């Protein structure tokens, strides 16, 4: 136990060391650049303090930007789940439908969310645009992982229930669903990461004053590079934290599984 604890402390220490190295490197680059377009770590700390205490030009503070972005991401992500999980389940159970419409479904995956923005602006309205842009990006991981995990359900488990006279609904509810759940949650985690990453793209839509992506874009327009970096770090940190949290929950829920992959 103590050994384990010491190990953990060591890993943490090394992590801090790496972080410090990055900071030193950053400072060196900043001094070498000497440009108003590149912020030093000191500027960034000041910018962070300003964002926490005073807020930006409009007076919106960091948490307010974060909250608005989180609401948008949550909605887009929820929409991706609502469409992706039942859709993946359905097309997984009837693989022919997927195989026969692949040519429509697959190419959409490679169109980046930003490319959808002009169309989203003219064809949709208000909040639904954010949902759509984030949905486009985060739909596929969750859809595809559901679909493929349905295809890979161990036939024995299905047969166990079939032989016992189970109905189709029972098999879906009690056999297929639990056995795909780990992949579905894994897909959801990847999706959540991607939807959070799309927030800057989604907030290019404009018309809103708050949002962490908005903060980055706006600050870039007025060359407040310190705030750009504050925004970037906030996004990176929130994304990382949610990811770790879901991994933690996954490990808890799926105790019956031997191992959970970290990706």
């Amino acid at each position, binding site marked *: 136990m103590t050994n384990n604890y010491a190990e953990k402390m060591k890993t943490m220490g090394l992590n801090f060391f790496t972080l410090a190295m990055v900071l030193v490197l950053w400072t060196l680059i900043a001094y070498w650049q000497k*440009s108003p377009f590149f912020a030093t770590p000191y500027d960034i700390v000041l910018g962070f303090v300003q964002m926490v205490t005073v807020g930006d030009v409009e007076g919106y503070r960091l948490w307010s930007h974060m909250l608005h972005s989180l609401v948008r991401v949550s909605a887009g992500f929820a929409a991706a789940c609502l469409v992706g999980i039942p859709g993946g389940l359905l097309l997984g159970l009837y693989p022919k439908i997927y195989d026969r419409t692949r040519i429509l479904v697959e190419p959409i995956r490679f169109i980046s969310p930003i490319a959808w923005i002009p169309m989203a602006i003219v064809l949709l309205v208000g909040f639904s645009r954010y949902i759509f842009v984030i949905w486009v990006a985060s739909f596929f991981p969750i859809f595809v992982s559901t679909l493929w995990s349905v295809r890979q359900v161990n036939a024995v488990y299905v047969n166990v229930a079939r032989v016992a006279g189970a109905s189709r609904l029972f098999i879906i509810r009690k056999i297929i669903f639990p056995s795909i759940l780990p992949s579905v949650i894994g897909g959801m985690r990847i999706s959540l990461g991607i939807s959070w990453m799309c927030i800057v793209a989604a907030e290019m839509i404009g018309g809103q004053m708050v949002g962490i992506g908005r903060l980055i874009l706006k600050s870039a327009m007025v060359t407040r590079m310190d705030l750009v970096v504050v925004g970037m770090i906030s996004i990176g940190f929130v994304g990382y934290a949610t990811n770790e949290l879901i991994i933690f929950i996954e490990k808890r829920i799926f105790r019956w599984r031997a191992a959970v992959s970290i990706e």
Partner: protein
Amino acid sequence: MKKRWLLFTVVLSFVFVMGFQPTVGSAEMKKIHFGYLVADQIHNFASMIIKEKKLFKAEGLEVEWGEYLAGAYVMQHLAAGEVDFATCGVIPTMITRGRGVDVVVIAGSNTEGSSIIVKESIKTVKDLDGAKIGTPGIGSIQDAMVDIVARKHNIKIIHKHMSVPDMPIYLKKGEIDGFIAWSPHNTKAAALGYGHILLTSHDILPGHQCCVLVTRGELIRKEPETVKKVMRAYMKAFQYEMASKKNHDETLEMVVKYTNAPKEVVVKAWALTPHPYPPYLNIESAKFQAEGLLKGGKIKRGVITNMDKFIAQLYHPYFLLDYLRNMK
């Protein structure tokens, strides 16, 4: 097992409900959506004064402000019927009009206000031959002005489209030989010593229309009262700035705050950016620019058959004239 599912559902539905919370507005006041461009306060100072001095509230209007990264974004939102009023360039407005969207200019905002900054080795306009010049994008007046310079002097200029705040960096790194930008980015780069001003837009197109106040044609027909109120607030903002030296200085301070540019840069930029009062649209300049758009294929050929008619549909000065008449 059951509990876990319940928790899962609750969390998911919570997330969902959070996401779909509608924006609540009060019913008594008329609500408008007003769009403006980020860091464009020197050209369109009026919206900033309206905001700071709460001039819309004085008119009994509730406003939702919207920031946009470029005129094209504003136009897309106008076309979608989401933005009611906006200040942005006349070029994107004409391009959108040329697409058949009913957008209407109800007042001008500023003329000129852009300039070409070049590296030190370029001394005369002739040196621009074969030079790489950064422009804000094909839908902008600045891009069109580079074409005008090239045509006038019979030289070839290579356009490089980029985001305006990035232009000074490109210039400093020597990736472009110069750029054309609106205030305060032009004076900012000059103040940083990255280049010098070769031509101002006054030299290229004297008195050319730059930014305008735009609305949707539908609003003019259906809610003229609202348009009147917006016009009144807009004009009051102009008058506020002109009223005294103190007010003018206060406006400059606001610009400094919003654009994050040094005071001296703002003062220089302001001097390059006339705001004619009363803010009529410069019709001759608008026509000239529309013809340029046609020539460049930026408005599809065949859309404009009669230029006068096109401008007459685009520009709707009734509310401006009405305000001026009633003022007396």
